[in-house]
């Protein structure tokens, strides 16, 4: 079973694969150039308090980005099969 979610809906520590990036031309461009692409495996490492940003690790390339929640909600992901139901 596969679930379609956005980065914001993941729990801390959960891994997922990016499916697509919503939002406008400029926003997509920035996310892509900072190294998040469809097909990349990512993990939510931690969440900042006060509805602050999420710390996203790109597992394929090994770097971390702090991403505001509004932006994270525009990054759609799917959870690999073995990850569901944990």
């Amino acid at each position, binding site marked *: 079973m596969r679930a379609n979610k956005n980065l914001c809906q993941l729990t801390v520590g959960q891994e997922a694969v990016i499916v697509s990036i919503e939002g406008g031309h400029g926003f997509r461009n*920035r996310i892509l150039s900072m190294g998040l692409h469809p097909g990349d495996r990512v993990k939510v490492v931690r969440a*900042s308090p006060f509805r602050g940003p999420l*710390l996203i690790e790109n597992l394929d390339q090994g770097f971390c980005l*702090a991403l505001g929640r*509004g932006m994270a909600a525009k990054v759609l992901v799917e959870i690999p099969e073995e990850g569901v139901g944990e």
Partner: protein
Amino acid sequence: MSKRIIALVGQPNCGKSTLFNAVAGYKASTGNFPGVTVSYAESPVTLGETTFQLVDLPGIYSLSTQEPAERVTLEYLLEKEAHFVINVIDATTLSRSLELTLQLMELELPLMICLNMVYEAEKKGILVDPQTLETALGVPVMTTVASKGWGVKELFAQALEVMDKARAKPPKYSLHVEREVGCVKSLITNLKTAKNIPLRFLALKLLEGDEYFTSLVRNEAPHLIPKVEECLNRLVKAHGQPPEMVISGERHALAMHIFEGAAKVTAREEGTPFREKLDAVVMDPILGYIILAGVFLGLLYLTFFVGSFLADQIAGPFDRLTQLFQGRGAWSPFMVGIIQGIAGGVGIVLPYLVPLLFLLSLLEDIGYLPRAAFLLDGLMHRMGLHGKSVIPFILGYGCNVPSIMAARIIESPRDRFITLLLASLIPCSARTSVILGLQAKYLGPLWAMALYMVNVIVLGFVGFLLSRFQKEASPGLILEIPPYRLPTLASLWKKTWYRLKDFAVYAWPIILAGSIILEALTYLHVDKTINALLAPLTVWLLGLPAAVGVTLFFGIFRKELTLIMLFQALGTFNIQSVLTHTQILVFVVFVTFYIPCLSTLAVLWREGGWKVTWASALLNTTLALVLAFLARFVGMAFFP
């Protein structure tokens, strides 16, 4: 022959500025967070018998035209001012970095790769074979560890040798992309716009839907736009994705392909890596804030203890020297002025400046600031700002000038306006020397800490109010969180020295001149006029002695002057004998908040225009008056 120009291009935090400083001496600002170089630094470099000009361009993630740093770099490269480009790559993020490399290759410039931080990559389990990379890209590749200076000389020697031969060939993408590139190329081949821009690069930018380049073509030949859009739509239809995703996806795939061919990735070592362990503590929802407060207070306490110890050692001898020259004929004002000017720099300001700048450099280079930004982003949003503003704010404790320049990393004009305004309220190292040298020394360090806390609360309150006036929502944060790096003592000292030099070169002459002028004014009894003019403010409103008026006037030039001249104007190094505790408190509060110094105002004007400059001067002065007036009552309550 005119001097050859070599430009360094790379992604943020890849070590460009470190590389630049390794050969050019300390001239570019570095730090372990993205976006340190906001405008570019350049310097002549001599290697053997050849001298060339080295340019450190701002770090960018891609060659788009969205962000100021990207535009600066792209324009520089398109104007073909550089004879040679060195693309600096952080080997730990090789596959992402290669996407920028591919874009640079599309510009068809003479190009070479500097693979930096190779040891860090090895530690992460990424082994790169430079030979394979060289073959795959078709441009020379050299490896370096710029932070230790390894491979740096060889890099530039190689660059000088190949600079006329190495020219990048644009990468080829999949068939249907190439077909549309060909189609767009044939459309735009005769345009004037295309004269200065490589045809293929321009065609790709149009296919990506880049607004800047599309508008260039629209201005020259509006009839071509629908035809370009036809190509673009065919591409979008074939891929089922927006245009910029198609091209970027192609680059990404090619970069991954090259990366997989040239790098061997071994499994990471067992156990949790150091970074994650430390992050778990430093970025913890509770511990993180305690550490943040601890770091902040520790910074100030340590600065105060080291500073006051040093100041005590130096003050005595200068005091005796001054007494030696006092009241000895017509030239004595000048001698006293010179001695006190030097003493003011060495004995009062420098002791606090050195530890503060050193500790700030340490925080910067370790990589703590982006983590502070991560923690504070949520809170900053309540103030209508976002976490990126934290970086200019923290830099502001060193000096407001670089902090105002660092506000360039904030994209939205609205956020930048508020950040600029608030940044000028941060007590910089000059104001810190006043706070520590007077308030902490005579009233106790807790009083100084309390003042910093009041300052933070005022910042939050003003930010909250300002964001009500500007309703537009603040966009979220995107910030790379770099790995921790342990800076060498030498590089920390160099950085501290680089900032101290600014004090020695710009501030000291002003302080010296100021001291001499003050002595001369006293000698001619002009200071009394200034003091009398300022008396309504100083005496009536704030309850200070009239003699401090002249120090506040000079403080507009440099904030340190208020402290140095206070000793001079009151004629003693023992302030307690002439000022009450309440008066010290009121004086320090006023100096902390009142009108930013001239250099800050000048850089505010340049970065944000007259509106923000006036707003800042007005806001700071109003706050200073209100808070200093309130401080009178606080003083009365605590020091009866």
